[in-house]
């Protein structure tokens, strides 16, 4: 009803804001994620803009040959090559992004063998292949969050639907569903992933599908329990007596009441999804080699204890993201519980 929903939303937002830590965490997280969506403009091995001979060039959008800038080869221009840079600077200027490496750019002019410690050019040092760690962290953060978000949303939708149906109808549907879930969650996910990754070359979508296949059960028990409890509530009986359809009772009457528990879990599920991806990458069964992956960085950190900048910076990023998500989760829980006292 339109004269009620808006006020409810406002109240929830107020309660969310009342939890300052969660509120700021949300903005920090959104800010970081928003920035990382433009990672190509922040960290790239191609300049943002080139002015050469009176014309403007956009190297990120179009691929130019060296000949375009007066070079000798008709191959794609390598803007990190000092020779190319001096060619361009003779007749114009170059506008670089803040970090002059992409996640897969190797720095061949390292002062020490890779992994090389932080310098002015590589502010967080490089990994064992000479790639800039800050660049990998930015791209890796984006990839992890997108993966985590997609996985949490999909697995929550499946889990909530299955839990709702089981709990609402109960009886045989419930018993069969529960037994299936018990068997399904007994599957050794990791071994299946290892076997599957030897059959197909796992990419982003394969990993998503596989982790979803074995990860949708997390919310089922919770939602099912809420529905089992709620289906005998008198307001549900009242809705039945009013002739409300089953699907409307499930989605409009019970689900909003069961959502508190689920929503509180969502940020934790998101954190869990990110951890899953990191784990798989760490073990080498995750994203293909050359992807910006936090797990891969962690495993490099473990293999190169003499280069602590790899492990420490990756740890800080992962721990930071997970903490932010926990704080947001707490604030969300406050927002959706109307009976919670105002502080």
């Amino acid at each position, binding site marked *: *009803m339109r*004269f009620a929903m808006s*006020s409810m939303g406002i109240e929830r937002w107020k309660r969310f804001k009342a939890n300052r830590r969660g509120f700021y965490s949300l903005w920090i997280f959104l800010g970081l994620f928003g920035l990382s969506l433009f990672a190509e403009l922040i960290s790239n091995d191609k300049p943002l803009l080139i002015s050469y001979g009176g014309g403007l060039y956009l190297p990120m959008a179009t691929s130019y040959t060296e000949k375009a800038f007066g070079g000798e080869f008709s191959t794609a221009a390598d803007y990190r090559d000092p020779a190319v840079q001096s060619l361009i600077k003779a007749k114009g200027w170059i506008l670089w992004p803040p970090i002059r490496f992409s996640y897969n750019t190797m720095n061949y002019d390292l002062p020490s063998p890779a992994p090389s410690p932080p310098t002015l050019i590589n502010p967080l040092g490089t990994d064992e292949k000479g790639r800039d760690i800050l660049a990998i962290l930015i791209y890796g953060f984006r990839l992890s969050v997108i993966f985590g978000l997609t996985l949490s949303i999909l697995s929550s939708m499946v889990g909530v639907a299955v839990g709702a149906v089981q709990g609402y109808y109960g009886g045989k549907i419930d018993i069969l569903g529960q037994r299936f879930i018990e068997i399904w969650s007994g599957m050794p996910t990791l071994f299946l992933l290892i076997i599957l990754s030897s059959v197909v070359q796992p990419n982003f979508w394969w990993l998503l599908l596989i982790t979803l296949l074995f990860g949708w059960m997390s919310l089922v028990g919770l939602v099912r329990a809420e529905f089992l409890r709620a289906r005998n509530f*008198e*307001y549900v009986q*009242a809705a039945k007596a*009013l*002739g409300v359809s089953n699907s409307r009772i499930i989605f409009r009457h019970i689900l909003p009441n069961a959502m508190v528990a689920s929503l509180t879990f969502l940020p934790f599920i998101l954190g869990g999804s990110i951890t899953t991806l990191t784990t798989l990458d760490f073990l080498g069964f995750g994203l293909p080699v050359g992807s910006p992956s936090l797990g891969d960085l962690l495993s490099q950190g473990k293999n190169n204890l003499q280069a602590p900048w790899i492990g420490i910076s990756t740890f800080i990023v992962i721990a930071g993201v997970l903490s932010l998500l926990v704080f947001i989760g707490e604030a969300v829980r406050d927002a959706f519980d109307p*009976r919670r006292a105002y502080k």
Partner: protein
Amino acid sequence: MGETLLEVKNLKKYFRVAAGTLHAVDDVSFTIDQGHTLGIVGESGCGKTTLGRTILRLIEPTSGEMVFGGKDLRKLGTREMRYMRREMQIIFQDPYSSLNPRKPIAETIEEPILLAGLIPDTDKRFMRVLELMDTVGLAERLINTYPHELDGGRRQRVGIARALAMNPKFIVCDEPVSSLDVSIQAQILNLMKTIQRDTGVTYLFITHDLSVVNHFSDDIAVMYLGRLVEKAPAEALFQEPLHPYTEALLSAIPVPRIHNRRERILLKGELTSPINPEPVCRFAARCTKCMDICTKEEPPLIEARPKHFVACHLHKAMVS
């Protein structure tokens, strides 16, 4: 008036439990006339609530018939039944759990109107909600409050408004005042009486409180362990209770007189188990007038006085 609205015939609801079959409602038959109120009385666990919910098919009956306005409710399909539900509503005992805690009360009252699609215009629907709130005595300023912000009496008013939203012909009142303060009980009962006078709605009034039911009902039916043991017009039942159980119940009503010397009949023992009951009088174990036949045969419900039915071996059917 005088036309039969609901006829319940041999209604049974058995639950299968680990120990056997629980006879919650066992072979209950009665009729209610349009605009009348039938009070159902009995102690807790006697199947009153199950009876009310079975009639509305919130619980599917094991066997029997419910003929409502000429149609057997059990023969209706899902869609027809949903349509029929507009005609028959229920008011619950506990106003704390019968309202969705996440919906403002206006939304709760609006839902049945919205679902029926009778008033598509939002503003007119809103006016109807205000009108209903006015009918049950809820101030307009409460429109966006949540159930937990209201006291028990107001919440019960919301429950009544929701039940009234579709102008039903029949309302099952499942102990609507039992969880309220005595002063508020009177308010709610008077409100329900007024509504009945204005709209001609028929009530099935379930309660364990005899003084409430006397105030409210035209007819009273007494239930014991899933069975109807006595049914009579309210006055006849109070003046001349025929069944020993009814006598005991009536003697327990407090009378506001200082030198009240009326003798109380104290029932001894506990309820016999409703699981797999023997085909004997179910009250025999606690009855003060128990005879041999009572532990051998189950007494049928007979008309011992005009319109006064009783199931007890002490009484014989009228010779017509």
